[in-house]
C-alpha cells in the first residue's frame, strides 16, 4: 500500500514537471530588437552615477572583504575586463552561432592610420571642419584652421588606407563637397560627398 502511495506521488510529481516543461518550452526565441530594448533599459537604470557612488562608498566603509576574496574578485574583474576589451575592440567577428566561422586578422596585419593634409577655400565661412567615415562624421574631430586672415582652411587628419567619403561642414550646418576631389554619390542620404583614397604607407 505504501508502495502504491509512493508510485502515485511519483506520478503526480512527473505530471507537474511535465506541465511546467510544457508551459515553458513553447516560448519563442526573443527578437533581438526586444532584447536590445531590455538591455538598454537595464543599462539606463544602472547609469545613475550619484546613487551608485553613494552605495559604493557606503559599501567600502561598512563591508570588510577578506584578502583572499578580494584577490579572487580582482583577478576575475581583470579577466572579464580584458576579455570584454578583446571582444569589444576587435568586433570584427560576427559573434552569432550562425556566423562563428569568420576569424579576426592578426592585429599586426591591420593597417594603421596615416596623416592626410586637407585644404579648403571659402572666404565667408566662420568655422569649417572635415567630417567623414574616417572620423565617424564627428564635427568636433577635425576642425580646420584658417591660414592667415582670408586664406584657405586647412588641417591634417588621420585616416586608414582605403577609400573614404567625406565633406566639409561649414558653420556647423552646411555640408559642402570638396571641389578639388572626386565626387561620391550618397545612395542612402542623397547629396554629394567627396572621395579620399588613402594609400598604404
Amino acid at each position, binding site marked *: 500500500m505504501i508502495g502504491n502511495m509512493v508510485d502515485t506521488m511519483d506520478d503526480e510529481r512527473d505530471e507537474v514537471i511535465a506541465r511546467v516543461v510544457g508551459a515553458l518550452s513553447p516560448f519563442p526565441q526573443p527578437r533581438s530588437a526586444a532584447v536590445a530594448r531590455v538591455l538598454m533599459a537595464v543599462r539606463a537604470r544602472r547609469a545613475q552615477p550619484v546613487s551608485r557612488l553613494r552605495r559604493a562608498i557606503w559599501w*567600502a566603509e561598512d563591508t570588510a572583504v*577578506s584578502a583572499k576574496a578580494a584577490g579572487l574578485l580582482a583577478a576575475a574583474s581583470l579577466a572579464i575586463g580584458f576579455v*570584454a576589451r578583446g571582444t569589444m575592440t576587435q568586433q570584427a567577428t560576427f559573434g552569432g552561432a550562425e556566423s562563428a566561422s569568420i576569424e579576426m586578422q592578426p592585429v599586426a596585419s591591420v593597417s594603421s592610420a596615416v596623416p592626410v593634409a586637407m585644404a579648403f577655400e571659402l572666404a565667408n565661412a566662420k568655422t569649417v571642419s572635415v567630417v567623414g567615415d574616417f572620423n565617424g562624421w564627428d564635427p568636433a574631430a577635425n576642425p580646420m584652421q584658417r591660414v592667415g586672415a582670408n586664406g584657405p582652411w586647412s588641417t591634417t587628419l588621420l585616416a586608414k588606407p582605403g577609400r573614404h567619403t567625406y565633406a566639409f561642414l561649414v558653420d556647423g550646418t552646411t555640408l559642402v563637397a570638396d571641389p578639388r576631389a572626386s565626387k561620391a554619390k550618397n545612395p542612402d542620404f542623397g547629396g554629394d560627398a567627396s572621395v579620399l583614397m588613402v594609400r598604404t604607407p
Partner: protein
Amino acid sequence: MSPRTNNLLLGAALCAAMVSAHGVGAQEARLLSIRDDATRNRVRIFVEAARLRGTPTEPLVSRALEGIAFKADAKRIEQALAALEKRMRRAKELLAPHATVDELAAAADAIANRVPEKAISDLRRIAPRRTITVEIGVLTELVAKGVKPSVAATMVRDLMAKGATGAQLTELNAAVQQDVALGVTPMEALVLRTRGVMSLLPPAASVNAAQRP
C-alpha cells in the same frame, strides 16, 4: 592586509576592468551627439540589436552619424542601417574566412556601388592572409567612376595576382582619375594605366613565391 586595503584593491581592479571595456562607452558617447531623442533611441536600439546579432557596430554608428550630418530623418537612417548591415553580412560571406572591420565596411561599400560580388571574393582568394581594404576601395572607385564593373574587376584582380601592391593600385586609380578629367574615357584610361603598372611588376614565378605564407 586591512579590510580597507582589500576594498581599495578590489576597487582598483574594477576600475581597470571598466577602463578596458571603454570601447562600448565611447560608442555610446558618440550616439549622444544625436540631439533628437527619438532618432537617438531608434539608432541605439538598432545598433544594440545588431551587436546581439554579432554584427560589428562601428560602421553602423558611423553611418547613423553620417545620416545626421546629411539631415536625414530617423526612418531613413534606420533604412540605411538595415541596408548596411545586410551588405556587411554578405561581405562577411564573400571575405571568409578572414575579415577585419575595415574590410567588411569596404566590401559593403563596394556592394553598394555595384561591384560584382565574385570580384570581392576573388580578391580575398588572391590575398588570403593580408588586408585588402585598399584593393577593394580602388575597385569600388573605378566602378563608381564609370569603368564597366566586369572590366574593373578583371584588371584589379590580374594586377593583384601579378603582385601589384595597394600603393601601386592607389596610384593607378589616381592616374585614371586624372586621365578622365582630361577627357579620356574611364575604360581607356584604365586599360592604358593597367599596362603601365603591369610593366613594372616582377615575373609570375617570383610573385607566387612572395605570396606564399
